[in-house]
C-alpha cells in the first residue's frame, strides 16, 4: 500500500522548473532511495512533501492526505531530517532534541538517551559549537527518538564519519524491521544499495529511472576479467559487450546484465583459466546517467 504518493508534481521558481512531473511512490514498510546529482530537485521534492513549499501543479499525498492542506495532521506521524541542519546557536543540542520531539507530540526519554549514547553526542554543548556532523546527529536523534510512521531523511549522512554512518544504517534497519517506511535521499550509493528496497533517480527535475534494485540491475553492466588458453575472437561484434581492454592480467570487459549468459557461453569455448566478476553496482547506472549531462549543476 502506498503511504506516500506524488502525481505529476511540478514546482516552478519563477521561470525555473525545479520539478517537472515527478512521480514517486513509497509503500508501507519500505525504504525508498531517492538519488540524483546536486541540484536535481531532491530537497525541493521533499520540501513540497513537507508542505513547506507549495507545488505549482500536480498532487502529493502522505497517508492519503494532501501534503499542503493537511500538513499538521501528516506531520504528527512523520519525522524529518533536513539536508542542511541549521540550529539555534544559543540552544544546547539536548534542548533542541527535546523541543523537536515535543513539537511532534510524544516523548520517549529512554530512546533519546540510548540514541545520544549511540551517536556519541554531547547534548550539553551549544549548537554554535557543533560541527556539521554533530548538528546532523541532533536532527537524527530527534527524528529517531520519535515514534513516527514515515521518516523523511534528506541526505542524512553527508556530514557523518564512517562509524556514525554505520550507526545510522543500523538505526534505519531497526526502523525497517519495525515496519516503518522511509524516504531516504542520498548521494551515497553503497548506503542506498545497502538499505533501500526501491530507488528513484531524479535528474533536472525528472524522475529518469525507478524501480526495485533488482529491476534496475538489469540496466547495469557486470564487469568481467578473463584469462583464456586461446585468444578470444569475435568478441567485438557481440551484443551487450562494451569497453574491451587488454592487459597483462587478462581481458577486461563490461557486459550488459541481460547478455551475460550469451557472453559467458561464448568465452567458455576458449578455455577459461581465470574469471573474475565484479557485481553490478548502482554506481555504474548512476554514472551513466550523470555522464550524459556532465554531472552536477547548482544545488
Amino acid at each position: 500500500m502506498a503511504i506516500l504518493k506524488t502525481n505529476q508534481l511540478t514546482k516552478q521558481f519563477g521561470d525555473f522548473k525545479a520539478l517537472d512531473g515527478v512521480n514517486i511512490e513509497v509503500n508501507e514498510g519500505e525504504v525508498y532511495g531517492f538519488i540524483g546529482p546536486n541540484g536535481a530537485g531532491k530537497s525541493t521534492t521533499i520540501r513540497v512533501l513537507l508542505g513547506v513549499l507549495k507545488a505549482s501543479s500536480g498532487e502529493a499525498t502522505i497517508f492519503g492526505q494532501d501534503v499542503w492542506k493537511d500538513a499538521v495532521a501528516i506531520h504528527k506521524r512523520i519525522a524529518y531530517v533536513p539536508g542542511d541542519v541549521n540550529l539555534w546557536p544559543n540552544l544546547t543540542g539536548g534542548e533542541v532534541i527535546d523541543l523537536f520531539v515535543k513539537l511532534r507530540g510524544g516523548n520517549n526519554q529512554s530512546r533519546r538517551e540510548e540514541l545520544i549514547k549511540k551517536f556519541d553526542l554531547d547534548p550539553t554543548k551549544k549548537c554554535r559549537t557543533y560541527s556539521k556532523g554533530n548538528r546532523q546527529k541532533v536532527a537524527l536523534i530527534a527524528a529517531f527518538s520519535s515514534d513516527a510512521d514515515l521518516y523523511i531523511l534528506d541526505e542524512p549522512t553527508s556530514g557523518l564519519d564512517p562509524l556514525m554512518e554505520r550507526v545510522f544504517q543500523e538505526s534505519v534497519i531497526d526502523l525497517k524491521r519495525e515496519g516503518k517506511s522511509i524516504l531516504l535521499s542520498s548521494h551515497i550509493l553503497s548506503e542506498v544499495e545497502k538499505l533501500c528496497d526501491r530507488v528513484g533517480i531524479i535528474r533536472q527535475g525528472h524522475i529518469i529511472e525507478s524501480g526495485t534494485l533488482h529491476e534496475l540491475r538489469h540496466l547495469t553492466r557486470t564487469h568481467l576479467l578473463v584469462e583464456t588458453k586461446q585468444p578470444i575472437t569475435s568478441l567485438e561484434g557481440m551484443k551487450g559487450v562494451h569497453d574491451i581492454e587488454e592487459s597483462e592480467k587478462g581481458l577486461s570487459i563490461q557486459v550488459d546484465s541481460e547478455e551475460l549468459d550469451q557472453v559467458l557461453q561464448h568465452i567458455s569455448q576458449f578455455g577459461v583459466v581465470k574469471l573474475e566478476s565484479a557485481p553490478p553496482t548502482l554506481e555504474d547506472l548512476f554514472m551513466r546517467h550523470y555522464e550524459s549531462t556532465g554531472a552536477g549543476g547548482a544545488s
Partner: protein
Amino acid sequence: MANPLFNQTWKLSRFILRRDRFKLPIWLLSLTGITILIAESFTGLYPTDESRESIAQTMVNPAMTAMVGPGYGLDNYTIGAMMAHQMLLFTAITVAIMSILIVANHTRADEEDGNLEMIRALPTGRLSNLSATIVVLLGVNVVLAMASGLGLYALGIESMDLQGSLLYGAALGATGFFFTSVTALFAQLSESSRGTIGLSFTVLGVAYFLRAIGDVSNEAFSWASPLGWILGTEVYVNNYWWPIVLTCGVSVLFILIALYLSSIRDLGAGFLPSKPGKKNASPFLQSPLGLALRLQRTGLISWAVGMVFLGVSYGSVFGDLDSFFNDMEVMEEFLSPVAGVSITEQFTAKLMSIISMICTIPALMVLFKLKGEEKKNRVEHLLGRAVSRTRLLGSYFVISLITGFVMLSLAALGLGSVALSVMDSSMSLGTFYSSAMVYMPAMAVMIGIAALLVGFLPNITGFTWLYLGYSFFVVYLGGMFQFEEWVGNMSPFAHVPQLPVQEMEWGSTSALIVIAVALIVAGFAGYNKRDIQG
C-alpha cells in the same frame, strides 16, 4: 601593507565595496540628501530673523535639550545654528547606526556564518578582513563628511560658511568612524553578530542618554559621551575642531585594541564568556511560543530596561517644565494650548507619541525574527513537525503584541512615576498611563503591516522601518517643519487622540483597530499560502 597579518587588505576592501555596491550609495545618498534638503527647507520655512527668533525660543526647554542637544547661538539663531541644533544629533545617530550595521555585517556576522573561514583559508592575513572593513568604513565616512560638508556649503546660505559646513560634515563622519571602532571592538568581544550589534547599540543609547542628562543637568555627563563631543563642536557658531580630533583619536585607540584582540583570538571565539548548557529542555521551551521567547529573551530584557530608562529620563525633566514654560508665550503657539490644560499635560501628550513609536521597534523586531529564522533555514524544523503555520506566526504575533504593550507600559509608568515625584501636579499616574495606552491601536497597525509583509512579501519587510521612520518624522518633528496635513495623516500615529489634552476619541481608535485586525488576518492568510524558503 607588508605585514603578512594584513595581506590582501586592499583586495578585501574592494570585495566589501563590491558586496555593498548598492547598500553604501543608498546610505550615503540618503544621508547627504536629507541633510542638504533640510537645510534648504529651513531657508524657506524661516526666512526672517523674527521667525527664527521665535522658533529658537520654543526650542529652549529641557525636553528639547534632552532630545536634540543644547542649542548654541540661540540669541542669533541663524540657519546654520538651527541646522546644528536641530539636525546634527539625529543625523549623527543615523550615521552611527549605519556604521554599526555595516561593520557588524562584515565582521562578526560573516564570521558566524562561516564566510570568514573561507576568506581566511585564502592567502589573506589574519587581520585583513577586519582592517579591510575599517578601511572601507573610514572611506565611507570621509566621503559622507566631504559630500555633506561641501553640499551644505554649496547651498550658498549666508550663515553656512565653508569652515562650518566642513565641520558639520566632519562631525557626522567622526561619529561614523567612532561607532565603526566601537563595533569593531565588540565584534572581537562578543561571539555573535547579535551580541555585537546589541552591545554597539547599547553604547549608542548610553551615549545619547548620558548626553541628554548632561545637557539638561550636569555638563560633565555630556563630556563623557561621544555624542556630547560631537555637539561640542558648536558647528556654525564657534566651530571648534578639537572635539573631532578627540573623537578620531579615541576611535583609533579602539581600533588598535580591536586589531590586537583579533590577532590573538581563535576564529569564531569571543572574549565574553559563554557557559556550558543544559542537557534537557525546560518545560517552558517545548513549544513554538517558548522557543520564540527563548530566542529573543536577551533582546527583550534589554529593551525593557531601555524603555524604563527612557521613561525615567523623560520623567526627570518634568520638574523644570512648568516654570520653564510659564515664561514663554511662544510655546503656547507651538503646543496650541487648550483651555484648562496645563503645559505639562500637553508636553506629556507630545512625548507619548515618540515613546509609543520607540516601543513599536521591539514589537516589530519580534515579528521579523520569524522571517530571520526562515532565512536561516530553521523554520522548517518547526513546520516539518506538528506545528501549523498559523500557530507559528501566531506565537510570534502574540509575543510582538505583548512586547509592544509591556514596553509601552514600562516607559509610561517609568515616566509617570518619576515625573510625579519631581513636580507638583494634579496629574495622576493613570493619566500618564492612559495617554500612552491610546497608542496601542496605532502600534497594532504597524504590527499588522509587519504581519502582512511577513505573510506575503518577506523580502521587503524593511518597508515597515521606513514607514515607522516616516511616522516619527511627520508626527514628532512635523510641528517643526510645518508639513501639509495629509502628510501627517498618512501615519497611524497621527490618528491617536492626544490624551490628556484631547478627549478620548473612540471613532478613530476603533478605525485603527479594525485596520489592524484586517492587516493581521490578511497576514495570516498570506503566511498560510506562500512558500517557506527554509
